[in-house]
């Protein structure tokens, strides 16, 4: 499958850092409940009408970004925060509605000088919500 340019809310994003700058985790909304006898009961939760309870978490990391690339990412992130329906297009070309991942730092950034130029490392955490149960705080 060909590599696609990542997009967030229509903004092209730089390629993630090689080799492990991009990861996505698919999980079901399973809950483990402790019973009084020490056993564990498992429940899977999903909204009515959803085909599955799967939700996908995305972690994207960049290293050594230029000032311009950095500003593109910040702009896309800010657009997402202010937007009502943000689409994230993955490197595999799949599209998901996303929000900043709950209990994450959203977009974290580090700044330094590299060969005399401004350089940035960034990490972005997103979560799909199309079929997700929990997207709240």
């Amino acid at each position, binding site marked *: 499958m060909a590599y696609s340019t990542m997009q967030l809310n229509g903004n092209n994003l730089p390629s993630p850092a090689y080799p492990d700058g991009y990861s996505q985790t698919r999980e079901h909304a399973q809950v483990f*409940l*402790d019973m009084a006898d020490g056993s564990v009961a*498992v*429940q*899977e939760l999903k909204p009515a009408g959803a085909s599955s309870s799967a939700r996908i978490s995305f972690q994207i990391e960049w290293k050594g970004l230029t000032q311009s690339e950095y500003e593109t990412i910040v702009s896309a992130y800010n657009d997402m925060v202010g937007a009502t329906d943000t689409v994230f297009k993955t490197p595999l070309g799949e599209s998901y509605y996303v929000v*900043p991942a*709950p209990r994450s730092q959203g977009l974290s950034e580090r700044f330094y000088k590299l060969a005399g130029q401004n350089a940035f490392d960034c990490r972005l955490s997103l979560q799909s919500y199309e079929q997700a*149960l929990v997207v709240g705080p």
Partner: protein
Amino acid sequence: MSQIVARLKIAWNFSTYTDESAYLVEASGDMRFSPLEDSITGGKGIVDTMSITLRNTTARFSALNEAGPLYSYLQNGKAYHAPVTLEISINGGTNYYKVFTGVIKTPQEAGVTGTQAGIVTIECRSKDELLMNRRISTPLVDFRSYHDGGYNESQIISSWLTAAGVSAGDKLLDDGLQAIDWAWLDDESALEDIWSMAAACGGRFYADPDGTFVYENSAHWLRASRSTTVQEAINETVANRITPVYDDSDLYNIVTVEASPRGLASADLLWEPDEIVSVPANSSKTLVAQLRQPAYAINAVEFAAATSGGQAITSSVSISSTYYAQRVEMTITNSHATHAAYLRPLRITGHSVTGSPSLEETRNSTDHGSNATFFTDRGNRSKSVRGNIYIQSRAQAGALAEFLLHRYEYPRLSYKIDGALGDPERRLGDRITVQDSRSMTNYREALIMAVSWSYGRDGYTHDIEAIDAAQLYRYQASPGYFLIGTDSLGSTKKVFY
């Protein structure tokens, strides 16, 4: 593994339900009876609640988002009291059961932050909420027919619900057990008086999760199949904690219940105004006469009208009246072309219904109970129940006093069950078995009095409060209660209170 599926529907336009399940993040709610004794002594019920959290990443539920699909229903607080239902399935959507039916309050938004999606929380109230603020006055003709027809509490509750706009299909009422001689509403909340009347008869009134208004008489738990047949076995394998609790508050061996019988008074003046009523020329005036006591019959609205100079113009004045039990709404029309009409006299005569707390019935453990020895070393403790106007006969007061005595004379055994696996079929009054084999030799049967439920990131669970069934009706296990049409005269069965 059980697959929990939630289906949330809201009728934003008050008629057609919209499925909002895809936006549901979490929900929690509470359904409960008032503590059994408190509901009788206090005459109050409880409005059940639900709180839901919805994902609002698309600003769908934002009242100020003019482009939102629900904007026309949300703007200016229009969503207030929109109908809502929540159904839950624990088998992947094969069977759904309602866990809440009611109305919403105004949605409360939590704005978007850099790391948090927008959400909306909505507080909901069961359908009792609709009755709470609906004030009703009983027409005089109904008030009289309740009395003349020997209406019982169930018939009167049904009549009041109908007056409040509740359809027959939304009512599920046990037969009444007590004739209530005099019952009326005077610009009062139907719900609060129904609670009082149910309490006066040892019963309960509430709106259930299916949205039905339910009256259960004091014998309901002896007869209803859900209360006589075990619905679920709860033990340490399906709950996080099971705690037996002995309630040692409110221990009494003497219970007194006050009654307020009423009677018909002879014909007399029922009302006259504090000041002269005047009606300008060629106009009408509406006047409400608030009677001191309810009226069984109104003989006439008597009046004479004169000008300010004393010239009689009674023939120019007419009065049309609507009679309620404790008020008369009059429309006074003065058709005189030039003179204002001064009505003197203006009075209403008829037969009022009078009465006050004038008798009481007392029951004690020595003569009517079974735990007198418990109090031998602890001294007498007395409880009085007063102020419920729907306790109107000696027999009714005696029955209540004895029922309460049987509850109060023992420390009452109940169970707190935390973190039980949720079952949306559970209803208040369901009979369950309770056992934690590590601390209880045998299982006990109990009736559910309260369920606090939650659905969300911590799963679907119930916190249950249940009362021990063996303590509830003294003669249920042996020898049993006499059933008309089943048991014969001379049987050892006991008459129910």
